[in-house]
């Protein structure tokens, strides 16, 4: 059930009406039923996969919860015993919790690896050894990377004692399967989402209408901008020999706009649908193209994935015993290098893992490595930049900030092009052609029509991007300092624009959201 299908619109209308009408204390049960229907629509086997993931998380969570309770009971009953004895008990208890966590994470992350990487591994083995093994056809549930990471985060939080293990299996099932976030996130935390997911308060009419407004904004981005430009991007990347140089640059630029409109549009629909049901999901973007460095860009783009990797992989890894020993050894040789070693090693590992999370392809591994290297190199060059800025008085000027924003946009766009070209070599050749065979005349003479875009398409897309820029200035959720009447008028205008200029209906194949495949 695609967000852009008529089926989803009908489904959403029924669910929102039912949520509005049903007694608030039953609302979360209704939401769970809707989530089960949503996922069952994608296939019973996908629903079964999700159910097994939830069941494993529930059992593991309860086991860890019981261990926490035993520890609490022991510590409160043994206040007069020596600290060493109490600590020894806590350590044994923690080791038992760790075994439960490791077993469950092995199963759910192992399953994720299997569904994403089996075909790739078999293909690689065939290429390497000249064998003709047939890759098994494995199920690939929609949003599997998202709900697996969300579930894994819950388990790690329970292990750490940051949240209590949920006693209600149905409540945990709703957390893992809440349908607006199943398609492409955001990746929520139990501690945040459970605050509103199970709320027994009546839905606030302000929230309801703000949610609808956000949904309309999401469809505007997806149908008016993303789906209109994606065909042009595909034309460029499918035939890099013909569309090289200036065309490659244009394709990479259009892809930046397309992916932004597609991904943030999907997230707007998810956050809007949730909010109209009285549920607050975490924001996933904060004007990423305004970033002045790669590190800042990744604090603004796909925020919930970045914080997931930071909290559950980067910190534990950078403070792990092997990296601590490596750091101490390096500090003996060079103090400054010693403190950087664990951070850089963890940064590169996290970025490789982030690439692997995105998909089974060398392109994503190289994409992850490139992001990690850019961030590490930027950090290493920071003192140099600082001296340069001080010497020429550039650091705090608006002009330099603008330069840094454009530089970051270009750099991240080049790295992002690994998403769209078929193969790492092809990507690098396309990027190289921008330098060696730019030939702007090709684009000037051929124009957008060579890419399958009419002048009208280009004008609509440009106008829509302008609308987004203006809309963005009104505040992140589009409701700041605006009267209810004006909000309604703007939303209706945006809806009208979407209906008139959106790429949908007969003759259009409403595309999947790009992030669905992850």
């Amino acid at each position: 059930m695609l967000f852009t299908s008529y089926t989803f619109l009908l489904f959403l209308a029924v669910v929102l009406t039912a949520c509005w009408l049903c007694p608030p204390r039953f609302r979360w049960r209704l939401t769970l039923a809707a989530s089960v229907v949503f996922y069952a629509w994608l296939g019973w086997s996908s629903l079964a996969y999700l159910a097994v993931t939830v069941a494993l998380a529930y059992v593991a969570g309860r086991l860890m919860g019981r261990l926490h309770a035993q520890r609490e009971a022991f510590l409160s009953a043994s206040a007069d015993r020596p600290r060493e004895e109490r600590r020894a008990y806590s350590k044994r208890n923690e080791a038992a919790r760790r075994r439960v966590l490791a077993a469950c994470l092995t199963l759910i992350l192992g399953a994720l690896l299997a569904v994403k990487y089996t075909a790739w591994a078999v293909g690689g083995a065939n290429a390497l050894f000249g064998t003709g093994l047939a890759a098994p056809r494995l199920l690939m549930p929609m949003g599997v990377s998202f709900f697996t990471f969300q579930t894994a985060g819950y388990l790690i939080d329970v292990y750490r004692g940051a949240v209590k293990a949920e006693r209600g299996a149905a409540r945990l099932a709703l957390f893992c399967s809440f349908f607006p976030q199943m398609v492409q996130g955001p990746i929520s935390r139990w501690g945040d989402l459970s605050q509103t997911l199970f709320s027994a308060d009546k839905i606030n009419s302000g929230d309801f209408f703000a949610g609808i407004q956000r949904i309309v904004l999401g469809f505007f981005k997806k149908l008016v901008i993303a789906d209109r430009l994606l065909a042009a991007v595909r034309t460029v990347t499918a035939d890099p020999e013909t569309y090289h140089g200036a065309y490659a640059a244009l394709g990479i630029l259009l892809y930046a706009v397309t992916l932004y409109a597609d991904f943030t549009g999907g997230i707007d629909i998810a956050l809007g649908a949730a909010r109209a049901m009285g549920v607050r999901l975490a924001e996933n973007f904060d004007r990423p193209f305004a970033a002045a460095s790669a590190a800042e860009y990744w604090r603004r783009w796909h925020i919930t994935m970045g914080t997931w990797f930071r909290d559950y992989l980067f910190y534990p890894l950078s403070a792990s015993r092997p990296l601590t020993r490596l750091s101490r050894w390096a500090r003996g040789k060079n103090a400054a290098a010693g403190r950087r070693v664990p951070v850089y090693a963890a940064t590169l590992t996290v970025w490789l893992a982030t690439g692997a999370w995105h998909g089974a392809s060398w392109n994503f591994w190289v994409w992850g490595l490139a992001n990690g290297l850019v961030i590490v190199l930027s950090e290493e060059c920071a003192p140099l930049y600082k001296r340069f800025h001080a010497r020429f008085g550039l650091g705090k000027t608006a002009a330099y900030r603008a330069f840094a924003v454009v530089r970051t946009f270009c750099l991240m766009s080049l790295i992002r092009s690994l998403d769209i070209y078929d193969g790492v070599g092809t990507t690098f050749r396309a990027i190289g052609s921008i330098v060696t065979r730019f030939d702007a005349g090709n684009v000037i003479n051929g124009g957008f029509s060579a890419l399958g875009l009419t002048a009208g398409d280009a004008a609509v897309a440009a106008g829509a991007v302008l609308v987004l820029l203006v809309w963005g200035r009104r505040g992140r959720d589009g409701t700041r300092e605006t009267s209810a009447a004006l909000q309604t008028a703007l939303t209706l205008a945006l809806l009208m624009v979407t209906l008139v200029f959106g790429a949908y209906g007969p003759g259009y194949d409403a595309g999947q959201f790009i992030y669905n495949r992850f």
Partner: protein
Amino acid sequence: MDEIIAILSSLHPEIDAASCEELADGGVIDSFDIVSIIAEVRERFDVTLTAAHILPEHFNSARALWALVEGLMD
């Protein structure tokens, strides 16, 4: 407490780690130091600091950091 002061002093010998009250807010320690402190605390006290503990108020002084570690040890 002495071990905490030793950790901070090893990272920044130029400061008086026992009395400084603005290690994080004053920009004395940076993100590299935070990672080193987490690693050293784990090695010396067998205490794991997670992202939820990484708040400036916990890292502003040796006393605040020791209070955090001691609380987690119990």
